[in-house]
């Protein structure tokens, strides 16, 4: 019976591998279809809301009125689908075991179509990624595959959706690895490739084999042009920083508004966008037709400069006000306009022969993508897949890398991660991968520590600690702890005659914390920084939620062989 059982288990494991292979194809197809449908839905909505040549009244009223509708949907029905969808997908993959409810996908589809179709300056790729990942996650759960496999399906679905949304299969695979998983060497590369290919096959069989942009063949005309491309790379890095900072500041401002205004915030964004569209309708929606024009040299210098600035402002307002849509397409748009502007100037004034401004617009797209999204490999391959031309690769790589490093230097946390931080979600730092046997904060923490109010005395806090037999306690409310204090620290305060003092004033407030997956060396380092001799262990999904405390005693208890967490 034992041998038979083991053999059956092995067969089931093999079976699950095969099922997973089939699933990657099916998920790729479904994610591709969802992305195509999403794109068609946006076109359909836009066509029916604006018509062929919209009047000023339409341009103003449509975003406002539709934002009121989406505001209600986003506040009452689908509260988790604001913004891009890429950071949420990353969070689901890294922190939520790949769990993305079907409701999220459906909500993102509906609100995304309404927001982008009604003229908000946002992209369709980010939402496509989340919709694709949601499809994958839902399918995985429905088939009841193992949790590990279900989690693996998230980047597979994301790659499939992005491949179809942008018609760039290689870039989609790289994006899934580089951005979603955070590791270009991830073992999921095969699955993402399969999903990406099956998705692109589906997309091309429906939409035809037309590339997203029609770009003439560009190449480096003169070696001195590399200098001009370097300037573009530096400029792109600066514009990326401006975009990210403005987006994050505006979003923080909206978040600081009273909670009851959340339902109206998208409409506030819609109001601004409505006014902008009256004067500059070219920034409406995804705006790829204007990117195409910039790539083909169809826009004047002044127009490109104006569109670069207005699109940047419009996108930050649309996004920060809580509408559903991404920053992927806007970053390409702003990049194309910024690149085209630089290109037109270089073409007019450089003392050496140069390529057309369209070549700079093309490189500019990759530059802003590398600076904002921080996926330099994806950006290089994406532009390469668009142009299918090796000639532009060298200037592209040069400008992309410069933009990437400048952006990274002055904005260390990528914008997607910073957006999650604003939502109190802390993703693990890139490159942090723990082995299964490694000890982390989860293993050394004391769960469910006691809380005391800041106006309780030090004596009362010490009593609570003794009663709970806890090595440390937290000062403040469960939603907002302000300090973490160890028993040794309390003993020291009592010995110093400060037992009657309110604990809130006796101990210094501290924001130092660790997450459950932090390695022990990080815990030790942070413990040294902590003023109260103890560290709160907080959830990555919500940094306001305390899961436990770590002190030197709990740490030594573990290293001495005593388990503090069963």
């Amino acid at each position, binding site marked *: *019976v*034992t041998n*038979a*059982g*083991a053999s*059956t*288990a092995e067969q*089931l494991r093999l*079976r699950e591998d095969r*099922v997973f292979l*089939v*699933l990657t194809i*099916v998920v790729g*197809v*479904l994610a591709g*279809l969802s992305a*195509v*449908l999403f794109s*068609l839905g946006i*076109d*359909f909505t836009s*066509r029916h809301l604006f018509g*062929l*040549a919209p009047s000023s009244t339409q341009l103003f009223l449509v975003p406002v009125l539709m934002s009121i509708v989406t505001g209600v949907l986003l506040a009452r029905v689908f509260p988790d689908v604001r913004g891009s969808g890429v950071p949420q997908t990353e969070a689901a993959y890294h922190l939520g075991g790949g769990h993305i409810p079907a409701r999220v996908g459906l909500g993102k589809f509906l609100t995304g179509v309404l927001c982008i179709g009604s003229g908000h300056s946002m992209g369709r790729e980010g939402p496509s990624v989340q919709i694709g990942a949601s499809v994958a996650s839902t*399918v995985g759960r*429905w*088939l009841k595959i193992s949790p590990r496999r279900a989690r693996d399906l998230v980047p597979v679905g994301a790659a499939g959706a992005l491949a179809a949304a942008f018609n760039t299969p290689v870039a989609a695979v790289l994006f899934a690895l580089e951005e979603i998983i955070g590791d270009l060497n991830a073992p999921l590369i095969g699955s993402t490739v399969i999903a990406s290919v099956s998705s692109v096959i*589906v997309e091309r*069989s*429906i*939409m035809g084999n*037309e590339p997203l942009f*029609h770009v*003439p*063949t560009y190449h480096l005309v003169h070696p001195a042009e590399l200098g001009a491309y370097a300037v573009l790379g530096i400029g792109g890095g600066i514009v990326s920083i401006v975009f990210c900072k403005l987006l994050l500041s505006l979003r923080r401002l909206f978040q600081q508004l009273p909670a009851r205004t959340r339902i109206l915030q998208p409409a506030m964004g819609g109001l601004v966008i409505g006014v902008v569209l009256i004067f500059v309708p070219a920034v409406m929606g995804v705006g790829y*037709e204007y990117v*195409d*024009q910039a790539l*083909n*040299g*169809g826009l004047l210098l002044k127009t490109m400069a104006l569109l670069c600035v207005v699109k940047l402002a419009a996108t930050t307002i649309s996004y920060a006000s809580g509408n559903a849509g991404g920053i992927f397409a806007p970053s390409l748009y702003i990049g194309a306009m910024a690149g085209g502007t630089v290109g037109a100037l270089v073409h007019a004034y450089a003392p050496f022969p140069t390529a*057309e401004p*369209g070549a700079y617009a093309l490189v500019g797209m990759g530059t802003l993508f590398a600076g904002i999204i921080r996926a330099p490999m994806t950006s290089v391959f994406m532009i390469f897949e668009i142009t299918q031309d090796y000639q532009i690769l060298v200037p592209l790589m040069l400008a992309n890398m410069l933009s990437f490093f400048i952006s990274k230097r002055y904005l260390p946390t990528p914008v997607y991660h910073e957006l999650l931080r604003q939502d109190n979600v802390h993703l693990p730092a890139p490159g942090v991968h723990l082995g299964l046997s490694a000890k982390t904060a989860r293993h050394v923490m004391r769960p469910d520590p006691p809380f005391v109010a800041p106006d309780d005395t030090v004596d009362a806090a010490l009593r609570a600690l003794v009663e709970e037999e806890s090595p440390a306690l937290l000062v403040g409310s469960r939603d907002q702890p302000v300090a973490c204090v160890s028993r040794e620290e309390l003993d020291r305060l009592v010995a110093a005659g400060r037992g009657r003092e309110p604990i809130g004033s006796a101990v210094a407030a501290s924001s130092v914390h660790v997450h459950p997956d932090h390695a022990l060396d990080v815990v030790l380092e942070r413990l040294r920084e902590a003023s109260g001799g103890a560290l709160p262990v907080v959830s990555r999904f919500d940094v306001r939620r305390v899961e436990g405390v770590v002190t030197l005693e709990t740490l030594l208890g573990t290293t001495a062989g005593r388990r503090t967490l069963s």
Partner: protein
Amino acid sequence: VGPSFLRNPPLTAELVHREIVKLLVLVACAVVAFFATRAFADASRTAGLRDAERWFIIGQAHLDQGEVQRSIEAFRRATLKDRTNRTYGLALARAEARAGQGEAAERTLLTLRDGAPEDPRINLELARAASRRNDVPAAVRYYHHAVYGVWDTGGGPEQVRLELIQFLLRHDERRLALAELLAATREPAAGADDDVRFGQLFLDAGEPRRARDHFERALRVESRLPDALAGAGIAAFRLGDYRGAAQYLRTVPDDNRTAREAREIATLVLASDPLEGRLAPAERRRRLMDGLAYARRRLEACQGGTADTLAPEVGEFEHRLSRRDAGDRDTLEDGVDLVYRATRAFEACGAPSALDRAWLLIGERHGAAS
């Protein structure tokens, strides 16, 4: 030893069966979703094509009203909505060229050409763009692509070749033009008008003999065709057949300046040449005396340089001739040569008159120029 269900084969089989059923359901869902999405995409594409057509019509209307910039915007939207329709792209390029945006027009055309390098309309527009910036090699290359492209309608390549020939002649590329002309006239012309056109081009290319052939062929079809008569007359004039020229040009209206001048000069040549055939000796002497008297008067009015040395020579020849008969050919030829040289000397004193030009031609006709 594993979960309990592994020791229960019927339960395992049921799980596997359920898994297969679910996968099949998923595949079925994907197939249905595929066809539904494709139907939606087709509807969307049709709507997009309709929008493109509407933008094209709007663009044409703007163009007709002279609002070129607005027409460019409309055509551009049409091309973005329907990339496959090259008519929209061509309309955009033409509007851009009309707005003086030559570079943009050429970029639009080159983008179009990337998708359809064999399209003669695109190549023709590119050739015209190159000709506007006087880039002869590029223009010739694109004209050739247009000539050898795939034409939907008949007559296209011939028209393009004629345009190419005219372009080459404008840029003084006579040899290239002649080569194109020879290629164009491999097949007999379709009618008198075509022969006249070819004759005119041969004339412009410096081939009066072939030109006259075409004009005469046209006259055989329509004997009173004014352009053919004028062309044949001018061709004959250039070939030195002044009698034929005068005959062809006799009825040509005066509004054709070249023909009128040719007729006048040809008539003067015929009336002034002492060596013209079938003339009485007295008439030859009179013509030569008239020529010498004219030359002397002109030399007297034109002081300095060669004129000063030639004037006594003409006077002396006139004097010699007045005392004896001019019946021998050598004397006549010497006289013609002298009048020719005197006429050459007038050139320094102003534009030649019709008679001057006639005497120059008489001199050339009888080898005085050599």
